[in-house]
């Protein structure tokens, strides 16, 4: 009699900077290929659509034990997620994520940032982290932290001009991300300071 296929275990979410991945432990069946399928259920499906589940076709009958669910976790509501295993004609029960997942819990890392002194121009280059991200950039003359200035960058397209520097003092910059959809910010990046000297770019 065909042995039952075990349901996937250790189902968990890895979510960083609004990129969400479902992972699980592999199911092993001697000498057989195991394939997995993932489904999700948002609050709408639970409350208004008879608790229906929606398959993620990119993660249907896959052999990997990870699924990128970013595109489907597209509202700040509680989601249920589940995985099952197929071995030939045999199919496991669903393994379901313990508890809900809400993208509001994603971990936000400080943005990668490069500060450039281009002659007397203070510029900053920010990492493109996707449309959900805005940046709050703080800059100040070293020693004059009380006169810190702020610039909000809503779209990262190219280098951002912050200020025109005087020759001599150091200028320092730090940045954090802000995600409006979940109304949360990352911590600030490391501070980077540069100094303008004539026409040459200077790093400190």
């Amino acid at each position, binding site marked *: 009699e065909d042995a039952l296929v075990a349901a996937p275990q250790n189902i968990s979410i890895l979510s960083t900077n609004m990129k969400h991945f479902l992972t699980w432990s592999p199911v092993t069946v001697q000498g057989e290929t195991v394939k997995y399928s993932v489904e*999700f259920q948002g609050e*709408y499906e639970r409350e*208004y659509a008879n608790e229906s589940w929606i398959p993620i*076709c990119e993660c249907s009958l896959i052999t990997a034990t990870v699924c990128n669910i970013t*595109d489907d976790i597209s509202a700040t509501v509680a989601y249920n997620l589940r995985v099952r295993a197929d071995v030939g004609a045999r199919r496991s029960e669903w393994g379901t994520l313990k508890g809900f997942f809400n993208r509001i819990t994603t971990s936000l890392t400080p943005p990668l940032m490069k500060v450039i002194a281009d002659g007397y121009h203070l510029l900053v280059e920010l990492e493109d982290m996707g449309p959900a991200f805005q940046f709050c950039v703080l800059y100040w003359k070293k020693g004059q932290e009380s006169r810190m200035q702020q610039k909000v960058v809503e779209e990262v397209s190219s280098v951002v001009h912050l200020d025109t520097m005087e020759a001599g003092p150091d200028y320092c910059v730090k940045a954090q991300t802000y995600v409006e959809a979940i109304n949360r910010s990352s911590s600030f990046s490391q501070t980077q300071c540069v100094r303008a000297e004539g026409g040459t770019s200077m790093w400190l």
Partner: protein
Amino acid sequence: SVTEIRSGFTAIKANIQARDPIRTLSILSHPHSLHKVKLLDRCCITHQLFNFYVDKVFKHCKTEDSFVNRKISSIANSFLIVKRKLGQCQEQNKCLCGQESAEKYKQILANYEGLNVTSAAIKSLGELDILLDWVEKSG
């Protein structure tokens, strides 16, 4: 959320509107467009319409296309967020419903119930940009 609703809808708009053969009728704009609604009534109409879509429309829009179904889920779950915020406004009496909003909503329901449920739901979903444009203009 409205931005995310808009991007979700844009991804499936052509597909959904192609499923609506009845071009001569409108759910939201017949006989008058939403743009004729008075300022005072806008919040209430918006709340009623978000409830309308959540309660009546999305569940009847299931298609054979997995991508479309996933985008409808995305839109529907985002609608819940806006609906909840509008509900809070109503609880704080900041979203009062007058005579005009009652009549306007009654008209929309009549338009909706004038068609079979699947056609009405698909047509309503296809008119989502009318609602989003109006919501964004109403500010």
